[in-house]
């Protein structure tokens, strides 16, 4: 059990986690079950995605955000509900989900609901510090959705007395972080990862265990209800430093710096470049499709093909890149904004109200992440990527 007395209250609590098959929810489940002796119940929509979660002594409960009955059954008997799920398939499910979850929490007298939002609600910010009082100017569909969810939850808090807290993690990296660790690593392995040369953007990085600390604190803190908290790390490394760190572990070239104008010029012909790459490496295209949401219908088509054609597709699927241009991963508009960011998240409110103290400066978090990368990418040569 934990040596951290701040979380000892969880030892006799039941905690429902939505999104526990994912990155942040999964790590919260690990910490609660293994370090703090909580009874963890995980809402699972797709059992096939629960391999990591299944290593733990947790209760897996089938449920859908859009299904009030399954949510009510999952919430019943829980002291704390941590809502870390986000449905990328249909945004309507997210609004329905938070409504159903909030109703279930009220119906079953849940002591605290913690909702995982995002720093992205603030959109593109000017250089300098920002905090929870900054204006919401969401830039992406994801961020717009998260703003709506925060507002909707606020109504439940204000009008119905729901004891909910909102967390806004920044760039959450670490083991199993798909967007900020695994994807950059795969790109560094497979080709050239491009960053804007000027300015050298700051990354509001937070190691995943700091987000877990904040989540657990938010589940207990007495003065936190109805508030939202930015959750970031104690420092602001540059994006280049982050990705250089990954590259060093991998033993590959670091990110390539290009002027903004050059990135814009290349982005205009990115489609053509991707096409050229696919022609040279059709296997990569097939592997991408096999991992996409189109997998099931494509597999159905594949099974109808003659044996010879199936064998040909299998050969391509297992083939390694055979040449052609080295893939160049240019930042799209959203990433460009992020990579040139000079705004710095302030976490004073979380420090004061939640008692949040980040434990992982970038150097330490990246050192831990390096251990993960060595383990997760045992075949670290470019060809195998």
């Amino acid at each position: 059990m934990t040596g951290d007395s701040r979380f000892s209250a969880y030892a006799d609590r039941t905690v429902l986690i939505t999104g526990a098959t994912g990155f942040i929810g999964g790590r919260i489940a690990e910490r609660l079950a293994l370090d703090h002796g909580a009874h963890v119940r995980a809402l699972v929509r797709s059992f096939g995605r629960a391999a990591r979660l299944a290593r733990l002594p947790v209760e897996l409960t089938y449920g859908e955000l859009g299904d009030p009955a399954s949510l009510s059954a999952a919430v019943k008997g829980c002291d704390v509900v941590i809502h870390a799920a986000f449905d990328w398939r249909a945004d309507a499910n997210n609004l329905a989900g938070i409504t159903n979850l909030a109703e279930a929490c009220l119906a079953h007298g849940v002591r605290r609901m913690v909702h995982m939002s995002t720093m992205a609600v603030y959109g593109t910010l000017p250089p300098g510090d920002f905090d929870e009082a900054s204006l919401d100017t969401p830039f992406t569909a994801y961020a717009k959705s998260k703003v709506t969810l925060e507002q909707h939850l606020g109504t439940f808090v204000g009008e119905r007395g729901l004891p909910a807290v909102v967390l806004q993690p920044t760039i959450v990296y670490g083991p199993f972080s798909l967007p900020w660790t695994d994807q950059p690593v795969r790109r560094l392995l497979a080709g050239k990862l491009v960053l804007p040369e000027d300015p050298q953007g700051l990354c509001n990085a937070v190691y995943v265990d700091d987000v877990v600390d904040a989540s657990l604190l938010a589940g207990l803190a007495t003065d936190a209800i109805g508030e939202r908290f930015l959750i970031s790390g104690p420092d602001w490394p540059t994006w280049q430093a982050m990705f250089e760190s990954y590259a060093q572990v991998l033993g590959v070239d670091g990110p390539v710096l290009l002027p903004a104008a050059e990135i814009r010029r290349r982005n205009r012909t990115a489609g053509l470049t991707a096409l050229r790459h696919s022609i040279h490496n059709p296997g990569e295209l097939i592997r991408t499709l096999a991992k996409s949401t189109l997998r099931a219908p494509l597999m159905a088509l594949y099974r109808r093909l003659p044996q010879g054609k199936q064998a040909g597709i299998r050969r391509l699927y297992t083939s390694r890149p055979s040449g052609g241009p080295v893939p160049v991963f240019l930042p799209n508009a959203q990433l460009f904004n992020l990579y040139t960011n000079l705004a710095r998240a302030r976490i004073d409110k979380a420090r004061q109200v939640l008692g949040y103290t980040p434990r992982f400066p970038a150097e330490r978090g990246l050192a831990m992440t390096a251990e993960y990368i060595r383990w997760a990418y045992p075949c670290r040569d470019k060809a195998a990527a």
Partner: protein
Amino acid sequence: MPLFSAHIPTWSFSLFSLLQSRAQPTNSVRSRSIPAHRQQNLAVVGCGAVAELSIVAALEQLKLKPRLFVDRSEQQAEALASRFGAAIATTTAALTEHGVNAAIIATPNGAHATVALDLLDAGVHVLVEKPMAVSGAECDAMIAAADASGACLAVGQMYRFSPAYRWVKALIDAGTLGEIRHVEVRTGAPYGWPLKSGGLWRRDVAGGGVLIDAGVHILDLLLWWLGDLCVEDYRDDNYGGVEADCLLTASTVSGGEVIAEFSRTREMPRRLRIEGARGAVGISLAGGTIDELSGAATSFDAGPRLSRTAATSHIQLFASEIEDWLAAIAARRQPFVPGHEAARVVRLIETCYRQRREWELPWMKVPGAPHGAAA
């Protein structure tokens, strides 16, 4: 005397040798149908993801029409039965009523032995999916039940039907590689089967995690190719559930080193390499093909019946094991993978779990929060 016994008395040795010599998988499952005289009154017991995605497709390829689909969920049974116009049932008690004399068991691992014992005791021929069972004791009971009733017990260790893997077997058996010095296999990918339930994630239902689910294929091949293995070290990341990643170090009887790593969370190289004193062979497990030969292995000729380049889909492998099992029943011979063969890998896995150590992954522990692994 039970026909499929593994313990054959001396007087029947010549007959057994003859039957064993025929216990080779056919090498030509190309959407052809099973001859009528080999067809049985079939049932499929367990209608989850494996049955839906693999067994049914193999049955269709072989143009076989089961009479009955059995599952605790009528809905799941119906979903598969409707493709064949077959009947459904929620328990195996219905097998007799439908005149079933041969059943494919694709239930969760933990139920393999219970279901198989019931059927074998009743004289029903059984093809049980891998792993044969979740303990050596269960395997022994199944073998004894088959011996007693004379039913044919085959196990779906389907990799043994791959032409390329049989070529490797011939290569090693011929001694071409010389003494085996080093074997290394690292395989797996983020898990993605569309599971119908959470049973695979429960130790009491699945019998374990990635080792018994995916590792069972590779370890069975290694036992088949190399003979018995001695477990030197086994570690995994089970913290009170079922492991998603594991690492095994073992040795062959002659002292060769074996390293095997299996994962449900990482993109692994999916490659197996065997290095001997006189040559080496490398295998792409993703495609089931040989992608490296060196030394004496380059000039090895396994004969016209074994192709090291033939790619085989997993549906074809399922079809091959079903075809072999039906042929074994019809010819009253041992199947290509009988119970006593498949039991070896179950015993090896049992030893691994018994000797388990926690795989210490640095990021799992947070400063100030030491945790002890459960189970």
